[in-house]
């Protein structure tokens, strides 16, 4: 076999592999979309492609469940915790990156270790704390907790700010700019990838959390999408699989589109730690 034939053979084989992996990746999404359009409410289906299509399950979500309300709740919570959480995270990263002060390294290690601690491990205490503050079953409680947890993941922003030349900041200081001016007028405009990455992570974190939201939000009209969807499928009396599938599609589509559009920033953000390793 000539070298060329060999390469062609290997390339064709690669394409076959890529196609198989592609099917493997797409299948669950495809299957759930198909299920959401299928007539009936069972998990089981005789055929892979449904014989008759219906949008009934989507309308069901809005008629039988408070889906629209959940959507509004979720957006409210995610946007609010995204804004507060991102600002806090960036400021924390900035303080650690640009300044040297006593106890700095120990504080950093402490925060990193605390960040490993899954939030719900301490849920009982947070629950009682929120109870004392009269914040149970409110969205404010969730926003506070998400935003308060965000600065634990300051390392990405710190590594990013480390790459910004310090001389830039010093020059601005000499020109008489205050720290906040420097941060908002000089550092922020240079940090678009970081801001996008951090916002995306805090937004999706808040959008998809169900454990903590489930603990705090007690009444149906306060629920978020994640809690609503989780209850829908784990409720032993509910058999409406297809409605659940429709819910999945409506929840997943915006986040998925967001992730795919922001691909470039994701790669940058995810490897930020690695390149400095």
């Amino acid at each position, binding site marked *: 076999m000539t070298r060329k034939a060999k390469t062609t053979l290997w390339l064709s084989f*690669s394409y076959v592999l890529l196609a198989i992996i592609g099917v493997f990746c797409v299948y669950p999404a495809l299957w759930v979309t198909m299920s959401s359009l299928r007539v009936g409410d069972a998990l089981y289906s005789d055929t892979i492609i449904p014989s008759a299509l219906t949008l009934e399950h989507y309308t069901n979500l809005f008629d039988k469940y408070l889906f629209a309300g959940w959507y509004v709740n979720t957006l409210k919570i995610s946007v609010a915790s995204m804004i507060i959480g991102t600002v806090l995270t960036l400021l924390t990263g900035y303080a650690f990156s640009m300044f040297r002060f006593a106890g700095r390294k120990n504080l950093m290690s402490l925060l990193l270790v605390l960040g490993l601690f899954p939030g719900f491990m301490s849920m009982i205490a947070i629950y009682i704390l929120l109870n004392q503050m009269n914040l149970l079953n409110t969205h404010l409680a969730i926003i506070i907790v998400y935003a308060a947890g965000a600065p634990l993941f300051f390392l990405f922003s710190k590594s990013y700010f480390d790459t910004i030349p310090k001389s830039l900041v010093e020059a601005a200081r000499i020109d008489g700019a205050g720290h906040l001016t420097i941060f908002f007028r000089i550092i922020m405009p240079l940090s678009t990838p970081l801001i996008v990455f951090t916002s995306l992570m805090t937004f999706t974190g808040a959008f998809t959390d169900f454990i903590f939201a489930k603990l705090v939000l007690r009444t149906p009209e306060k629920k978020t999408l994640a809690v609503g969807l989780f209850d829908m499928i784990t409720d032993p009396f509910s058999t409406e699989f297809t409605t659940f599938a429709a819910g999945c599609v409506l929840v997943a589509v915006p986040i998925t589109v967001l992730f795919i559009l922001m691909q470039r920033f994701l790669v940058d953000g995810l490897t930020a730690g690695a390149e400095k390793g």
Partner: protein
Amino acid sequence: MQQLAMERSGSPNTKRYSRTAALLSVLAMGLGQLYNRQYMKGLLMLAFYGFGIYTAVTRLPHALWGIVTLGETETKLRKVGKLYKQVMGDHSIFLLIEGLITVFIMIVFVWLYVIAVKDAYHTGKLREEGGKPNTFRQTMSYVASYRFPHIVLTIPMIGVFFFTVMPIVFMILVAFTNFTRENMPPAHLIDWHGFETFRDIFRIKAWSHTFYSVTLWTFVWAVLATLTGYFGGFAVALLVQQKGIRFKSFWRTLFILPFAIPMFVSTLILRNIFNGQFGPLNQYLSLLGFDKMPWLTDPMWAKFTLVLANFWLTFPVSMLMIIGILTTIPKDMYEAADIDGASAFQKIALITFPSVMHAMAPLVIMQFVGNINNFNIVYLLTNGKPVNGDFQFAGDTDILITWLFKLSMEQGQYNFASVIGIFIFIVLSVFAIWNVRRTKAFKEEDA
């Protein structure tokens, strides 16, 4: 020079501003500053001091009593006239948390107090040397420019403190109590129990057996989940980035789909796909004439399914990161290898792999740490099932963190859950600190 200094300190004209200021500050925060003629600062501090002392006097004794005793009166029925009425006793858990918060606030207060004394001393020293103490305006501008990181960090730290540190300290303390569902406040009181729970976990057969088995599976799971995700992502990255493959960005976008779909949604979907009775996977198997597989109901298969599902969820992240790293490897290394007649395999093994490995090592360790605590996938996919009768409130696929969740949220065994929590915490911190301290981001070239 020395003589001069002695003369100066010996002369009656020089006042010992620093000592007087410090002593006054010890007496009451702010007095030293007033003495140093920093009136605004002094008054503010004095007001803060009054507030602090007021809190200390009114709250601290009760807080300490609460922490030490965890409450003394139990809720019970008392005869009032002809009727029995329930009289509320002390709520041990509330006492503990309120006590903790008060004690922490007091520690911060004392810390600020010490700083104020030091400040008075230094300003006094400055005056001895003939300097003028800062005016209030000067102080404000000094704080704004030199204390900026402290001010900026205050808000996040308060948040971290109340919603992370305090709950963790609480959890650690719970491990030393007998807080379980059987003596749930407010109906009952909770007592300090020392190391009883720690001993029980190792001494009582059912607990120790569960603990060892679940720990073992947690580590096996973390290793398998990390390695499959990493090498799977690596292989796919190489496949996509090969010379001659067209539509690279199309393939890439296709493959990040599992990562882009919110994880809790896709895991719930996978759970239905693997459903043993009605799931599509078994349906196709039986169409092809195979037996149905017990994907989620047999211990071994459930573990396999878990790793498989996790692979599906995580290989895209590794792929994305590795593609990012691949583009940074200099092309001339491959050209040189070509000239030397290296095979494709040799190039991968000797150039690509070491470069990627070097860059990825810290991330892989962090992924491993994350997998030890990978609550979501286990909880959503199998929920620890199938249930194992030999285990104490755990199933075959439960890892430590989901076992902890079941113990506290479902079974109300809070003290046992806390002991497990402490164990996880120790294991994780060792890994994390060791890993983070190694990275350049932490070591700092310029410090």
